[in-house]
C-alpha cells in the first residue's frame, strides 16, 4: 500500500507521486502519516514536509504554512508559499 501525495502551491503543483511515509509540520507539532491513517484535515505551520518516496528516497519541501488533508490514502498538502 502506498500513499498518493499531491503538494500544491497557489500557482503550480510542487510535487506529486507515490510515497510510503509523510511527515508535515502541523501547528501543534509534527504529524506523521502512514497508509491507513484516519482522515484528517490539519493546519500546517512553517517547516519542512518530508516525503519518503516509494523508491526509498527522501524528498524535502520547505513550506511557510498551509494545510493538509488526508483520506483514503490520498494526501493533499496545500502550501501557501513554498520553495523546493
Amino acid at each position, binding site marked *: 500500500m502506498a500513499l498518493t501525495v499531491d503538494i*500544491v502551491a497557489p500557482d503550480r*503543483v510542487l510535487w506529486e507521486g507515490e510515497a510510503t511515509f509523510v511527515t508535515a509540520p502541523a*501547528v501543534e507539532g509534527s504529524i506523521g502519516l502512514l497508509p491507513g491513517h484516519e*482522515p484528517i484535515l*490539519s493546519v500546517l505551520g512553517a517547516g519542512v514536509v518530508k516525503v519518503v518516496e516509494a523508491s526509498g528516497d527522501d524528498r524535502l519541501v520547505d513550506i511557510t504554512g*498551509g494545510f493538509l*488533508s488526508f*483520506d*483514503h490514502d490520498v494526501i493533499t498538502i*496545500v502550501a501557501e508559499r513554498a520553495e523546493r
Partner: protein
Amino acid sequence: MAGQQRVYKARIKSTQSLKKIFRAMELIAASRIGKARDRVAAAAPYSRAITRAISAVAHHSDVEHPLTSKRLGTDRVAMLVITADRGMAGAYSANALRAAERSRERLEAAGKEVVQYAAGRRGVSYYTFRHRELAGSWTGDSDGPTHAVANEIAAELLRAFLAPVEDGGVAELHVVYTHFASMVSQEPRVIRMLPLEIVEGVPEVGDDAEPLYAFEPNAEDVLDALLPRYIEARIYNCMLQAAASELANRQSAMNTAVSNAEDIVRQYTRLANSARQSEITQEISEIVSGADALAAS
C-alpha cells in the same frame, strides 16, 4: 497634382509602419496567451484542493464563521473591477466597466452604497476621470498577475469585510472580471464573493461516503485558516482569467487592426495610382496642346 501623390505615398508609408507595430503586438499577445492559459491551469489544483477541504469541513461541522455569515447593519457593498493596464485590447476594459456600472446601478436601486475598488490602470483612470472615489486600486501587471498581488488585494478586501461597520466595513463583496471561456469568447462576469456560500456536495471521486475527518487543531481553526486562502485563490483565479481574456482580446483587436491597415494601404495605393495617371494624362495633354499651339502659329 504631384502634391496629391506625395500625400498618398506618405499615408501609405505611415500605415505600413503602423501595420508592422500591430502585427508585432498581435504576435506578442499570441505568445503570452499560451502562458496565461497555462497559469490558469496550473492554479487549478490548488483551488480544487481548497474547495474540497472547505466542503469537507462544512459537511462535518456546523461552524459559524464571519466570512460565511450575512452581515447586518450596513448597506455598503464593495465591488472590485478587474481591467487591463493598457488599451489596444478592443472593448475588453470597456465591457468589464460597463458590466460593473450595470451591477452598480442594480445595487444602488436596491438601496446599497457601493464602495469601488479597481485593479488595472484602465479601470482606475475610468473612475478618476469621473471623479468617483476609489477605496483601493492596484495597477501594474494586469496581463501577468502574480499570486503576491492577488494576496494583497484579498487582504485589503477581507480587511474591509471584517472591519466594524463604523470603520467602513462592508456587507458584501462583488467581483467583476472577464471570464475566459475560449480564445474567441470571453464575457464579463459579476460574482458575489462574500459572504461565502459553501457549495456542498462537491462530487467525490469514488462512491464511498465522505470520510469523517479529524480536525487538527480543531474545526474552527481549520476553517479560519482555509477561508482566507480560499478567497485569495478565487481572486487569483479571477485575475488569471482576466489576464487571459485581456490577451485574447488584444490579439483579436490587433489582428483586426492589421487587416484594416492592409485595406487602407490598398485603398491609398489605388488613389495614388489614379493620381499618378491623371497627372500623366494632364502632362500629355499639356504637351500636345502646346505643340498644337506652336504648329498653328
